[in-house]
Each structure stands twice: as structure tokens, then as C-alpha cells.
């Protein structure tokens, strides 16, 4: 695919809605404080469950034979858990790794952490991400990007909040993502790079359980400085959101050709 077509895919508004009408948003935000009784500011601890056998099963380019074999040998011991933390308000959100260790066996060991940040400023309609991909750290700064959600009808409780579901298909990674957002927490924030729903996203299920991000503790409180853009010590390359998407697309295409799983090299 040449760059032109690639850009077209990236700009395709079916998948991501770009350039939120910031004036409208600001109006909403300004009125928000007076109109709402709920506090929509606080922090969420998400438990992320990775299942690498299901991640592999979702790759259509790996032979069925190989996927079956991996599931046969590893299906019941393929999970890995980690905690993530989201600080949110209707205006901003900050998502990063938690200090807590979700794998009990790993308590007492501390590996090197990779730089990671998903920062959203809904007021300014900006995003600032720090992500490691293919061994390199990228600083992504751009206007806000949120998926184009399809809103569904189902009702479920997550961490004490009644949620509705919505879904989205990522055209580059090929993910089918189903999320549950809280009707009572009015903020467009969510885990990872997910955002743009009328309520806080409390659960996200990628490819039928390949990765499940579920809120397990929600603490509503005034956050103060926690919502400011943190200082990142790591060095990295500055790219736009589109450049970063293009980088991912290229890498996934390369791995597809080599019939290797791409998710060891870039974030799922």
C-alpha cells in the first residue's frame, strides 16, 4: 500500500472520528459542572488479562493447524495478568501502568518498565501518548482521536456501575473490541487509546477474551495534580498519530508476510 492509500485508510471516518468540535465540547464541559450531580472524577484500577493463545487464535494468517496445536498444548495456561491505572475527569484522562503486581508469583521481583502513557485532553481535544513499539519509544502528540463506536443495547454491571455496550473494529490491528461504558460516569475517557463514549469505559474485551481490561476498583475523588501531563524521562521519537498508525500498519504487514505473531513487537 502506498502512503496515499494508507492515509486514506487512516483518515477514514468510519473508524476514527477526528477533530472533535472543540467549541461544542467546551460548552458541554462548562455546563457540566452546574448540571451534573454525579462526580465524574477519580481513578480506576483495571485488571488486564492477556491470553496469548487467544491472541494467536485471532490472527487469520497463522495456519489453523498451528493455532490448534498451541491451543491444545497451552490453552489452559495462557493467561497473564497486570494492573493498569486510569485517572479521569470529564476534561482529561491519564492511563498508565500501576505499581501493583497482579501476578502473585511476581511479587518480590521488579523488572524494567517500559515507558507508557495514554494522556487525553478532551477540553483541548488533544492527545499525548508515549508507547514503545519495535524496541523504540514514540511520543505521539496530535489532535484527539477516538474510535467510531457502534452503540449496542445490552446491560451489565462492572465494578458496581451499570454499563451499556458498544463495539469497534480496529482496521489496522484487526481487533474486534467490545466495551462496556458506565451510564453514571459522564466522561469520554477509557483505558488504552479507547475514548469518546457518553460514559467512562469500564471494561474492554478484545477479540473474545484475547485481552480483557476490566475495572476492579473505582475511587471517585478530586484528583488535583494527578491529571496533569506527567514528565516522561524516556527518550523517544516524536511522531504524529497518523505516522504512528502507519508504522504499526507496516509492521503488522511485515509480520503477516513472515507468518509471525505481531503482538510481541507492538502493543496489543
Amino acid at each position, binding site marked *: 500500500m502506498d502512503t496515499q492509500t494508507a492515509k486514506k485508510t487512516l483518515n*477514514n*471516518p*468510519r473508524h476514527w*472520528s477526528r*477533530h*472533535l*468540535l472543540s467549541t*461544542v*465540547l467546551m*460548552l*458541554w464541559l462548562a455546563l*457540566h459542572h452546574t*448540571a*451534573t*450531580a454525579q462526580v465524574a472524577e477519580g481513578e480506576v484500577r483495571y485488571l488486564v488479562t492477556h491470553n496469548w493463545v487467544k491472541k494467536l487464535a485471532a490472527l487469520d494468517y497463522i*495456519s489453523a*493447524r498451528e493455532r*490448534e*496445536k498451541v491451543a*491444545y*498444548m497451552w*490453552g*489452559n*495456561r495462557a493467561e497473564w495478568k497486570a494492573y493498569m491505572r486510569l485517572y479521569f475527569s470529564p476534561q482529561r484522562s491519564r492511563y498508565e501502568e500501576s*505499581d501493583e*503486581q497482579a501476578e*502473585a*508469583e511476581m*511479587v*518480590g*521481583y*521488579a*523488572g*524494567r*518498565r517500559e515507558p507508557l502513557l495514554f494522556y487525553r485532553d478532551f477540553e483541548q481535544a488533544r492527545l499525548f501518548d508515549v508507547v*514503545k513499539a519495535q*524496541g523504540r519509544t514514540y511520543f505521539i502528540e496530535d489532535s484527539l482521536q477516538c474510535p*467510531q*463506536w*457502534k*452503540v449496542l*443495547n*445490552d*446491560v*451489565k*454491571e462492572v465494578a458496581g456501575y*451499570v454499563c*451499556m455496550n*458498544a463495539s469497534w473494529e480496529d482496521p489496522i490491528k484487526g481487533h474486534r473490541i467490545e466495551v462496556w461504558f458506565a*451510564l*453514571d460516569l*459522564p466522561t*469520554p475517557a477509557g483505558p488504552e487509546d479507547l475514548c469518546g*463514549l*457518553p460514559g467512562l469505559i469500564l471494561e474492554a474485551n478484545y477479540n473474545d477474551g484475547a485481552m480483557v481490561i476490566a475495572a476492579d476498583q473505582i475511587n471517585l475523588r478530586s484528583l488535583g495534580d494527578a491529571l496533569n501531563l506527567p514528565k516522561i524521562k524516556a527518550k523517544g521519537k516524536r511522531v504524529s498519530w497518523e505516522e504512528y498508525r502507519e508504522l504499526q500498519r507496516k509492521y503488522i504487514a*511485515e509480520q503477516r*508476510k*513472515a507468518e509471525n505473531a505481531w503482538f*510481541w*513487537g507492538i502493543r496489543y
Partner: protein
Amino acid sequence: MYFLLLRVKSARTLSALFTLFASGAVVLTAQTPSRITLKGTVLTDSVGEPAAMATVMLLHPTDSTLLAFTRCDERGAFVFRNVRNAVYLLKVSYVGYLPYQQRLLPAESESTDLGMLVLKPIQRALMEVVVRTAKAPLYIRGDTIEYDATTFKVPPGSTVEDLLRRLPGIEVDDAGNIRAQGREVRRIYVNGKTFFGSDPKLATKNLGAETIAKVQVFDEKSEAARLMGVEDGKQERAMNLELKEEYKKGAFGKATLAGGTDDRWASRGSYNRFDEHHQFSLIGYGNNINETGVNWEDYSEFKGQNTFQDLSGEDFGFGGMLYGTYFSTAESGLLNFFDGRGFTRNGGGGINYNFDNKKTKANASYIYNQTHLDLDEFARRDNFLSTGVFSNTDTMHLDEFRGNHRLDGRMERNFDSLNVLIVKGSLSLSHSEKQEGRQQRFFDSDAPFSLINRISTENSAKQQAWTLSSSAVFRHRFRKPGRAFALSTGYSQQVVEQRERFFSQNQLFMPTERLEQFRTRNLNNANSWRLKSSALYSEPLSQHWFWQTFANARYSDNATNRQVRAPDQGDLRVDSLSVFYNFTEQFYRLGSSLRYVVEGFNASVGLAKQQLALNGRFAQDRNLPPLAPPIRRSFNDFIPYAAVELEPMEDLYFDLEYTYVVTPPSFSNLQPVPVFSNPAFQHIGNPELGPERAHHLQFSAYYWDDASFASMGFQLSADGYESQITFNQRVERSDSLGILTITRPENVTGGHRVSSYSWGNVPIVKNRLSLSFNGDASRRLAPAFVNDVRNDTDDRYWHLSTSLSLTLGSKFIFSASGSLGFNNVTYSIRSDLNQRIRDHSANASIKWEFLAKTFLESNFNYRLFRNPAFDFRQEVPIINVSVRRLFGPKNRMEVRLAAFDLLNRRLAVNQRGTQNFVTTSISPTLARYFMLSMSYNFRGQADKVTKNDGGIIIY
């Protein structure tokens, strides 16, 4: 009022609108506004209770894409200002109410008031019981509400009726009549279809509850209305039971039969069946082509989920609880392992069962494997003394049978997230028989061609043994992260019964000719058992500091009875060679360590006190008085420990570990009666033998580059001996034996051993060309006394190999590799006899799909063995070629024609230099043959060449 609008440039939105225009369903006149204001009020009932803060969304009418959203104010009012005038799906959601949906057509005026939108409540019972208590999602399809019936637990064997009684909002009376949300259910569907006519009870009384995935309750037109096609306005309550999708289950298998020249044959087969919780497999093989077991792929399919096991460690120590995933070696007897010498006939098979649900993992298996080895070996051994050199040739024929039954079981039970119990047990029964004939000629090398003597031996042995081993590990975690306790216990026992017959004939030529014969009949019995237990407690002191302490206790008992009789002398016991000995070993260790943990840096220091007590007694036979006073030895040591795990940057790891190792001597090395099968080489134990003591250091480094996929690693292991157990020699000329060598284990100070290994893989052209290398280097400085003269053998070894692999698409792979091996051995007492042993090789291989589904695979390997000290040079060139073709649906059939060792040059060569001797041996093994094989694989064979199937497959 406020709202949020997501700007949309959707092509599909436009095309949908265009469709609407074109179809004429909506005709927008020039007066139709392009942007409008939409408003309305959301109420929770018809009385007028407002739905304050309800979420109101505008969705794309065909695919529900979210276009804009807002929230109601305290009066339930909402407004969307300045939105595009188009077709929308308006959706209102509010906690506790069914989502409200309404299709909006393009408006004719700039401001449209949708009026009052009244929400319908979701049954309170559903919200409370299903959503809040059972945490199950409610699936809402219009007015139909479904939920996941699997979250409601009923006892096994329950019917749907029992399940329905549990479900909120549903009542079942004694007669089996069902009422849902207060109204009688008139009709029951199963997967949307009427089940056995119209009596709903037939379905609910007959179907098993475990087959149901979802229960749906909805209202439908009355039967009269449906039959007559006339709307009577009546609604009847109906229920649909969605059955679970068939459990994921299936079966697969494969079989191969091969026949070749020189009566070569091979076969193997496997069958696997599985469902969500169970895996069952059978495997079998047989051949006469030196495959003593199955390959890794077949083995891992046989073991399934149990190929690797978690949390199996039971001897806790400084390393903690030994977490991690381990390769289960239990039935590794099934895996192909052949050392390259001789000819074997092999057979075996097994049955394996795995059970796995969330709480319990269980495994049981039985395997049998046997090998019949037919081996000829020609060896030369040169022995160095401070006073001279002697050498011997050794021609051996061995005919050996080994058979092994093995039963294994393992269970891992997770009582809850904090408590785990793992119980393991295995029992094996083995039988072996061997016949060995040897002829050795001894020469005085300083006086060439002078034959000293010739020894011929005929030995046979039959052995029967059983081994039991069992263990249990219990782990408890406390709620505080990092605080944990573990306890383990294990028992093992081995009973061996062996009958041997030795015959040797020694023809002496110097100083005078004479003939000596020696014949014995031995009965050996050994019974040993061991009981052990360990405990570990770990406590987090802070976020960065952890403390752990452990205790180990072990008790071993070994009773060996060796009764040697002389058939030539009335079958009397040979007192000098018969012995009964009974040793016990008690081992206790108590240790503690402190660990500091911070991002990328983990360090531990620890200290343990250990005590080892050995008690032993000897007699000529089990019930005879002791030969010598009992041995009582006790060794007390402090064991220091330190470890650092460092990750200075991502994907770069360093590990360093130091500890002091005290290894107790083996019991057989403690008993003082000589053991030999050949009178010229005798081994005698040493009751005074102490443990081996060494400082042990281990280092490893590993690097992985995400971007290029390059990786490399390095490992180093070093031991500095304070006291090393070495086998000192006494070599004597004897008129009755020729040259007699007696080895005896003794503790010697000094010596060290260092070994290192490194590897790397560098892609040159991504996915096409890659370079890999690995190398190892080791050095061992071992002192040993020969006739009381200390000789330090310095054994240095280097090996380096590199390979280049070229992949062209999925059709062609070429690789070339080379390897150099150097082994220099120097002797402090005779530097003129230093050895320079070489083992070099070059290899090229090709895999090529040259026609559709037709593959050519070939490799050429050239190996050169050299030792200039003896003018030894042996070349072994090997060429293998195979052509195979896939047939049938899913490529299930494969036919292969293979030529193995086309040049007919295969030989096994071993060169080894240690202590004060060098041996070089050559054994014939399977050389040229041709083979035709047919395989069937239920899952189909991959229609491409793959790098990782490891070498050439012969059948």
C-alpha cells in the same frame, strides 16, 4: 443544556442518505433545512417522572455508529443543536430501564420537538438478581430480555425446570406450569423452534440444565392471530431456550508406515480426543532405524496440556518457591534419544489423560518403551604414568535389552486463589539384560609392539528394578501481597535385583607366558528410600524489601548386598569381593535471605546452616557381624548465597549468582570392598571420603532487539574446588595380572571448572537471510594422583559454529553451517603426551517445494575427527536425500522416498582425554539404506517448507 457532537464525514452516512433520496422515501424540498435542532423530554413513567441525567444518543440508522450524544437535565429535557438534518436512530439509555430507540426521519422544520419519550423499566428482579448479584449481562433485543443461564448454578443432573426455578422473575408450580413476570408462558421454543408440540413442560422437564446457554422471555402474537393472520391485539408470553454451542471437542491422529532396504522398517501412530475439560491420547511406535522414541512434536501432542507443568518445585531454598513452568520430564523415555553408536530395535507406546477445569488439573499416564541394542566398538586407550606409558586396545560386543513400564499421576488443586495443593506420584518397573564380550590387549608403549597380555571377558547381567517417587506441595498465600507459606514432602524408594556372571581369561606374555582364569557369579540387591520435607515462608518488609526463610530435612537409607560366588570353587562365597553395606544420610538446612527489589534491579543475600550426618556399617553378608567399626561422620557448614538480577535497559538482562556447594559422596564410593567386572580394572570405595566442596558462580546475559529481531545470550558457570572427589589411580605391574589399575575416590584440594556458552541470531535481510552462531568454551583443571604422584590435567575445549539461512518465500530454504571444535589436554607429569583433539564439520541443506505439494529435502554433512598425537584422522561424509508429496483433501496423505547416508560412510567416533588417559573409539552404526513411507495426518500436513522442523525427516 449541553451536547457533544462528533463531526462525521462518513461515506456510508452519505450513501445511506443518498439511498433515501433516491428511493423517494423522503423528498427533501429546497425549503428543508440542512441543520436542525432536536429536542424532547425523557420520562420514566407516564405520570411524568423525569429521567434526569439519562444519556441520549444519535446513531447512524443502519449500523448504530455513534454520531452525537448528550444528557438530559433535571427535568428530563434534552436538546441537540445544529445537527445535520438526516435519518437518525435516537437512543436513550438510563439505569434500570430498557434502552429506548426511535427512528428519526429528516425534519421539515429547523426545530423538531420529539415530545415525551417514556421509558419502560427493566424488571426489578432482573436488575437485582441477574445484573447486581449474578453479575451476568442482560441482552436486550427490543422488548426481549435474555440472560446468561450459565451464571445460575444448579446441581449436576438438574433439568431445565430446576434451572427456571432459580431464575429471577420466573415461577414454576408443582405441575410444571411456568409463569414469567407474572404471566403464564404459553409456548416454549428451543433455539427458536417449537419443541415437541405445544406442551411447554415437555421441554423443561426433559432437557438437562447444563445444555442451556441463554433464557429469553418475550411476548408474541396469540396463536389465533398467527394462524388466522388477523391481528387480535392479544399478546402471549413465550420463552426461548438457547442451547449451548457444542462443547469444543474433537479428535485428531496420524499414522506412518515405512519400509526400506536391508529389512529396515518403521511405524508410528497417535490418536487424540479432547473436549473442554478432557484430553485423551494414545501413541505407539516401533522401528529398527535407531529411533529410540518419538519426536518432540508427537510427544507434545501426546502430553497435551501437561507437556509443561507449573509450580512443581519442592526443595525450597534461596531461589524461593521455584515458580515457573517446567518441561515435564516424567515420560521423556518416550522421546527419541540415541547416542549414535550401534544398531537398535525399538518399540513403545503410551496412554495419557488430562483433566482440567478452573480448579483442578489432573493428569494420569502409562508408558512402555523398550530398546534392543547391538553394539560393536573398537577403542584404543593410552595411559600415562610418571614412569612410562602403556596402552590397550579394546574390542567390545554388547547385546543389551532395556524395557521400562511407567505409571504417572499428578493433581493440582486450587482450593481458591490463595491455596494450592499439588500431589505427584510415579511408579516404574524396569527390566534389562545384557551380554558383553570384550578383548583387550595391553602394550608397553615405550617398548613398541611388545604385547604384555590379552584379557578376554564374557559378562552377562539381568536386572529387575522398581522405583516409586511421590511428593506433595501445599502453598498458601496471605491477603497481603508477597506474604506466603509453602510446605512440601516427598517419599521415594528404589529396589534393584541384579544377577551377574563374570568370566575373564588373562593370557600373559611377559615376563613369562601363563594363563589365568577368573569366574564369578554375583547376586546384587539394593533397597534405598528417601523421605524429605521443606518449608518456606516469605514476608514483604516494605515495597522494596522482602525477607524469606526456609528449612529442609532429608533422611535417606541405602542397603546394598553384593554376594560374589566362585562357581569353579564349589560355588563358595568370595569373601574378598562380597559385601553388605547399609548407609543412612541425615540432612538438615535452615536458611534465610533478604531481597531488595526496585525497578530493573533485584538483589538477594542469604545464609544457611547445614548439617550432614553419614552413618554406615559393613559386613560380608546381611546377617553377619560387622567387618569394621561403624562409620559415623558429620559435616557442618555455613552456606552463603548472593544473587543479582539486573535489567539496565529493556530487553537486556544480567543474572549473577554465587553460592557455596557441599555435595555428599555417593554411598557406593564409601564402601571398601573392590568392585570389578574385569580384574585388570578394579574400583574400590573409601569410607573416609568427605563431601565435595566448591564455590559456585553463575552468570548469564541476554539481549533481544524488538526492532530487528536480533538476539544474543551468554552463560558462564564456574566452580572453584576446596575439595574435589577425584578417582586416584594405582597402576601396578603384576606377574599374575599384567597391568592392574585400581581406582579409589579421594578428596583432593584445588582444581576448578569453568564453562561458558554463547549464542546469537542476527537477521541480515528480514524474513529472508539470517545469520546465527553459537560457541562454547570450557576449561577444567583436575588434579589426580597416579601412584602417589600428583598430575594436573588441564582440559581446554572450544567450539564455535555458525550458520546462514536463506528463505525464499514459502517454497525454498537453503542453509549452510560450519563448526570447529578444539580440545587440548595437557598433563603436568608428561607434557610430551599432550593431546590436540579436533572435531570439525561443515553442513549444507536445502528444502525446496519444486512442484506443487512436492518437496525435495537434502543435506550434506562432512565431519572430520583428528588427533595428531596418534596420527588419527577419520572423515565422515553423509548425504541424505528425500522427496515427498502431499495428497488428498487437506493434504492428509504424504508419500516419501528417502535415501539415508548415500555414500555409506556413517560411523560413530568418540575422542576423549581425561585424567591420565586418552581414548579413541569407533563404532559402526546404521549406514546406507533407502526407505519408502506413507503417512496419514488427520489435521493435514503443511503445504510449505518450514525452517523449524529440525533437519531431515526420514520417515
